């Protein structure tokens, strides 16, 4: 192991290390902790310039209550879920199939199609912006959640295919050959042999895509406007306009908006990291 395990170091080094961990964390998450502090302060603290002192009274319940019952926030949150969940299902379903096709079969254009997905996944959003917005307008899906979902599914299929294909490649190919010898049809091989083995990959991709889509801002701004269809990332900016100087409400709102992916990450940590570090270990 590198660096040398701390247990094998002198006692003083061990104590220093243990003491430095929380300090470093405090420093690293400082800005976030500040927002958490803001979110439980009363409005008066900001007018009295008591920004960084202790809250003069604990107003957490009131502030978060305002966010939930007196703003568009619940609406935006609901929109975010209604955009994110179908996208995750759609992109994972499509890429299970494309990944299977590219990982199992040998045909001439295999590698080129694979590279098309990989390359497309890396293009800057701006080169898609005008045509995609135009297409969405023409389909009558501008400013709808469906319009956003369709694009997200299509775009995420690029990354998901890369992921799934590499995962399937690492499966034991003998399983498929054995099934073919048994005369099992290709569709049933996909459904009964390969898909059950893909569960960890499906879990990893689901959390990852959930986070990506939840946090998307650009497409939310380009393809939607207004509270009926916008997700929480875009919502928080209108929130910003509405509560410009109400720092306590802005903070509470930001924390609420950030919570779902954070919860997802803590619940599915192992899978999340497995997804992110794809290919980083050989």
């Amino acid at each position, binding site marked *: *192991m*590198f660096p040398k*395990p*701390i247990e094998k170091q002198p006692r003083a080094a061990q104590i220093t*290390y*243990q003491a430095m961990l929380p300090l470093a*964390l405090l420093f690293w*998450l*400082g*800005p976030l902790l*500040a*927002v958490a502090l803001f979110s439980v302060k009363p409005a008066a603290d900001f007018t009295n*310039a008591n920004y*960084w002192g202790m809250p003069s009274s604990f107003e957490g319940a009131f502030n978060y209550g305002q966010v939930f019952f007196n703003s568009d926030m619940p609406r935006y949150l609901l929109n975010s879920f209604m955009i994110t969940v179908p996208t995750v299902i759609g992109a994972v379903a*499509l890429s299970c*199939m*494309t990944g299977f*096709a*590219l990982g*199992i079969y040998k045909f001439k254009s*295999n*590698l080129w*199609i694979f*590279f098309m997905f*990989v390359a*497309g996944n*890396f*293009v*800057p*959003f*701006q*080169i*898609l*912006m*005008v*045509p*995609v917005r*135009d297409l969405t307008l023409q389909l009558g899906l501008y400013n709808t959640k469906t319009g956003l979902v369709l694009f997200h599914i*299509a*775009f995420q*299929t*690029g990354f998901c*295919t890369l992921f799934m294909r590499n995962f399937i490649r690492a499966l034991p190919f003998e399983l498929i050959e054995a099934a073919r010898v048994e005369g099992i049809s*290709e569709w049933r091989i996909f459904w009964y042999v390969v898909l059950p083995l893909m569960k960890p990959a499906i879990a990893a991709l689901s959390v990852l895509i959930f986070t990506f889509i939840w*946090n998307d*801002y*650009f497409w939310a701004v*380009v393809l939607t406007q207004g509270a009926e269809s916008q997700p929480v*990332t875009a919502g928080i*900016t209108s929130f910003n306009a509405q509560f410009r100087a109400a720092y306590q409400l802005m903070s509470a709102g*930001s924390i609420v*908006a*950030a919570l779902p992916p*954070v919860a997802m990450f803590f619940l599915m*940590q192992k899978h999340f*990291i497995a997804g*992110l*570090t794809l290919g*980083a270990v*050989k």
Partner: protein
Amino acid sequence: MTVAADASEQESWFHRNQQRIAPWLFLTPGMLFFLVYVIIPVFQSFNLSLYEWDGLGAAEYVGFRNYEDLYWEWVDRDAFYISMKNNLIWLILYLAAIPAGLFIALFLNQTVWGIRLYKSLFFFPFVISQVVVGLVFTWFYDPTFGLLNEFLGFFGLGPVNVLGDERFVTYGIIFAGLWPQTAYCMILYLTGLNAVDPEQIEAGRLDGAKGWKMLWHIIIPQLRPATFIAFVVTIIGALRSFDLISIMTQGGPFGSSRVLAYYMFEVALSEYGFRMGYGAAIAVILFLIMLCFIAYFLWSMYREEKGR
């Protein structure tokens, strides 16, 4: 009877050829989506960049005039020049996330009590939205109450309006962006460090290598795959930078924090008028820059595929 025979014949034809047909059946839905929403729009943007179009009326063919306008903006050191320059600064400074991530990973790569929780908490900034990161850092930099100025004031340094000053604004935003990006690189390296060969470390220790020497000659070469991915995601992240700029400054003050990605958006979809063709031309330039890195990445993948 003939119908039944036909059916069985059909089925057997499908049965005989299913290994040739199956991949295409599996590929069709995904490819269709991807072509319609990603591949074709790239070419449409190329085409569009040769037109003058406000998004509503008829498009007027203008050849390369949009690009010429960009060139003159370049010569005049205007918006395009500033965006390009800022993109370059982003590209270079963003790479600091890689050594910073490695540093934190080395710091956290121990097995003391509670370290798993520490690792996840350090990863936090990557999980939250850039919109929230942008808001958090806007307050952090705020000239009247921001933590940064409280901190500077502690050393007797005057308040600095980071986001309101043309000299500092881009660096301030990049610094905010480095926060989540470093967390990402850290996770990549933590995983990579798990896979480092303990025997090589022992051999190194026997040869008297430790500290920097060990890190440089034995550890970093083994972290190559992690470094490669960190490099790819950091470059892409730097060129895609949009959210933070939009949230923190909207390109200001006086357009001094624009990058190509933001400038394009501004030209095509905001009060500066709906100049779709001009925007497309900017997007094409950004795409061509990105293409160099995409090509390099694909080339590396291709070599690896051939190698196995």
